[in-house]
């Protein structure tokens, strides 16, 4: 094995340690340093993870965790915050990749089955987790004294967040594994469907929690907001995707840069106009693939060039922002909830697949793809903590701990499932029909 890479890694570690020691107090911080360090070092550690048969993504995450503020502190807390800047871009790019890779024709034949699988899986998860939370509430370090409807509203909010999935991580694992096939498509479609359901359910249960807390109800505005978030996102993504498809046809130059600019637009517009960047980017990808299929190869090249660095930074940032102190504080309940979640997920997925008639061995691996939790879950935790500081903060701590556990385990499980299904690396071959 060549020593070049370990040596390069050692040199870069040395430079980072040296720069941190010598840099003047109050020096102009630069986002470029943690970005550069994470990009190379996380990528090299990702390669090391591959040697021990872990997904590269786990290597990127472990890099963030190891070098983050809680352990080696080579990526300080402020650097970790700087790294989060890439999140919006990463979510848009990852969803765009999913949109480009989703084959509508193939999915159409399985649409009913996928909808049934998603509905049953979520239904079982909500029921199991919700009932257990309600029963175990007095022992959870959140608001043990809450009773009746107030407790119910809190349980529903926590259940909605706990049962959520991470389409971003799922799509990232698929993209990084160069995977293509029925399992990858089934997991992505179910996760996207569940994401839509999550937006709906979370908005409703938050409304209930507001009412229980004595806040003003939004009434008819609720439906409008929901519609805007879902249909507005899809429409906006469709328009942006259409414009990009025309750019591909008419100009077709500087694709990597234009693609990154497109992702910035999709993520920033989402933030400004309360749209869901994931949905908007997914819609954009679908439209591009269907309007300009002739230029799809050039686009895939551009995506390939830009996706790798963005994925590395996204997962390194996720690793660096894993709050180990939250795990230390609420570790035992978090592990218990994580076990309940995975068990209910597996049972729900199994029931859903059976009811949809998907009994093949590959489909039975669906649950492995849905274990991961990341950005969306953490974001919902922040929303709850901001709106209901009294009980929302302990909820956020639990959510952070849960996400930490799931994001470490989820990609490993899913990648192994993709390997078992024989779908890894199939993106580089001829398209499956």
């Amino acid at each position, binding site marked *: 094995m060549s020593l070049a890479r370990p040596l390069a890694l050692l040199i870069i570690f040395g430079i980072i340690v040296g720069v941190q020691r010598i840099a*003047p107090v109050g020096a102009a911080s*630069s986002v470029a340093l943690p970005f550069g360090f994470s990009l190379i070092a996380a990528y090299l550690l990702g390669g090391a993870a591959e040697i021990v048969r872990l997904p590269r993504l786990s290597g990127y995450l472990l890099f963030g965790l190891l070098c983050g503020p809680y352990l080696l502190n080579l990526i300080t807390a402020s650097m970790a915050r700087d790294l989060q800047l890439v999140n919006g871009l990463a979510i848009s790019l990852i969803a765009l990749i999913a949109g480009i890779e989703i084959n509508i024709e193939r999915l159409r034949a399985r649409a009913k089955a996928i909808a049934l699988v998603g509905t049953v899986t979520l239904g079982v998860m909500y029921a199991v987790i919700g009932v257990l939370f309600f029963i175990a509430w007095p022992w959870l370090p959140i608001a043990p004294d809450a009773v009746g409807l107030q407790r119910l509203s809190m349980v529903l909010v926590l259940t909605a967040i706990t049962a959520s999935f991470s389409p971003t991580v799922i799509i990232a694992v698929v993209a990084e594994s160069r995977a293509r096939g029925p399992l990858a498509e089934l997991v992505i479609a179910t996760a996207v469907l569940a994401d839509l359901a999550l937006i709906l359910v979370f908005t409703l249960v938050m409304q209930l929690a507001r009412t229980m807390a004595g806040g003003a109800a939004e009434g008819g505005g609720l439906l409008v907001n929901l519609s805007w978030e879902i249909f507005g996102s899809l429409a906006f993504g469709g328009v942006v995707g259409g414009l990009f498809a025309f750019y591909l046809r008419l100009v077709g130059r500087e694709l990597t840069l234009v693609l990154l600019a497109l992702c910035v637009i999709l993520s920033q517009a989402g933030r400004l106009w309360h749209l869901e960047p994931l949905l908007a980017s997914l819609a954009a990808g679908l439209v591009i693939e269907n309007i300009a299929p002739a230029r799809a190869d050039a686009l895939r090249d551009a995506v390939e060039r830009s996706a790798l660095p963005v994925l590395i930074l996204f997962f390194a940032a996720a690793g660096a922002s894993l709050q180990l102190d939250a795990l230390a504080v609420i570790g035992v309940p978090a592990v218990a909830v994580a076990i309940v979640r995975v068990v209910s997920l597996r049972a729900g997925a199994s029931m859903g697949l059976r009811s949809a008639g998907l009994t093949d061995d590959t489909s039975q691996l669906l649950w492995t793809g849905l274990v991961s939790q990341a950005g969306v879950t953490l974001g919902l935790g922040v929303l709850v903590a901001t709106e209901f500081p009294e009980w929302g903060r302990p909820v956020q701590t639990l959510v952070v701990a849960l996400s930490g556990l799931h994001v470490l385990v989820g990609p490993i499980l899913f990648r192994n499932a993709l390997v078992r299904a024989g779908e890894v690396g199939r993106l580089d071959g001829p398209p499956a029909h």
Partner: protein
Amino acid sequence: MSPERHWPEVGRDALDAPAPPVRRRWLPRRRLALGVGDTLAPSLVFIAIGVLLGPSGINVLSPGILGRAEPLVSVALAVLGVFVGVGTTTIPRAAARDAYLAGGLGFIVTTVGVAGGLWFLLDAWAVPLPIPAAACAAFLGIAASASAVTHAGQSESARRVIRMADVDDVPLIVFGSVAVAWLGGEGSAAAALRLAATVASGAGIGLAGWLLFERATGTPERGVFVTGTILLMAGTGMYLGTSPLLTGFVAALVWVRAPGVADRIGVNDLRVLQHPLLALLLIVAGATIEWTLVVVWAAVATLLLRLVGKILASVAVAPLVRVRPGLLATALLPPGVLGIALAINASHVLGGDSALLVGIATTAAAASEALAMFLPGELEDEA
């Protein structure tokens, strides 16, 4: 696996294949960095766009957005440093002595002329400045020394002038970085330590890049290594309170001197980013200009002093480059982007009122560029 088979697009290295000399078409010249023809000074266009979009114009590029562009700006500085580093080492050995002498002498005469004149004027007229007049004058003198030689033509005389212009970027980067570190405060010893750390970091990053680039297993992986390396150069320069120009320059020297094709891989991959990053740099510079009487006054003074400095420098170095001083002065007049880049570097490191330096350097550079458009620059070989 040999580098040639591995990365055919970057070709063989001149150090690996000494004869016949490799035609260096792959090297994107700094003067063509913006990819626009010689008939238009593109920097003027981008600076004007920046002024229009910036806080002095319609404020689309608000101070907040300009602050967020910092990582990209520092990356642009590192990329410029790499191109200068690679460019200066491609001078044929036979011509190197004259080029280095001419470039060094030209730098000294222009810098001393502009800095001395500005210091005298600033001091004599008691211009209110946020930093000491001597420091301000010295910094602007260094920033004004660069020449881009945008329309000299293809003759042998033109090549000699271009070589000289390439070489005079080196002292600008070195002394500019010293000035930025020194202006950063904390005393001379701390500044020297930070400069030494910058050079060591640049060399270390160059070494890491050399170890990684040629051994990459594919284009996406190579892209990760090149992008990460450039980000490290940009970040270390800014963190150490010196200059990404210097880290990029030192790393490029390591790539060129090391065996293999690391320099070509770096340049080849960075070429994609070159145009947009330099355009961004100029747009940010234009948007950063705050139009005050001090800025306009100092910019006019810098323009005139630079003109005089370049004429004097041309007289001094004409025997070395074998071009008539008058023609040489007009060829050396376009300043390019390096002086502006250095000023932006200083304003990012020093913060506060140092944006004044960007305003003066950018306005003076834009005016020099505009003036150069009306002067003949084509150099022909004299019989």
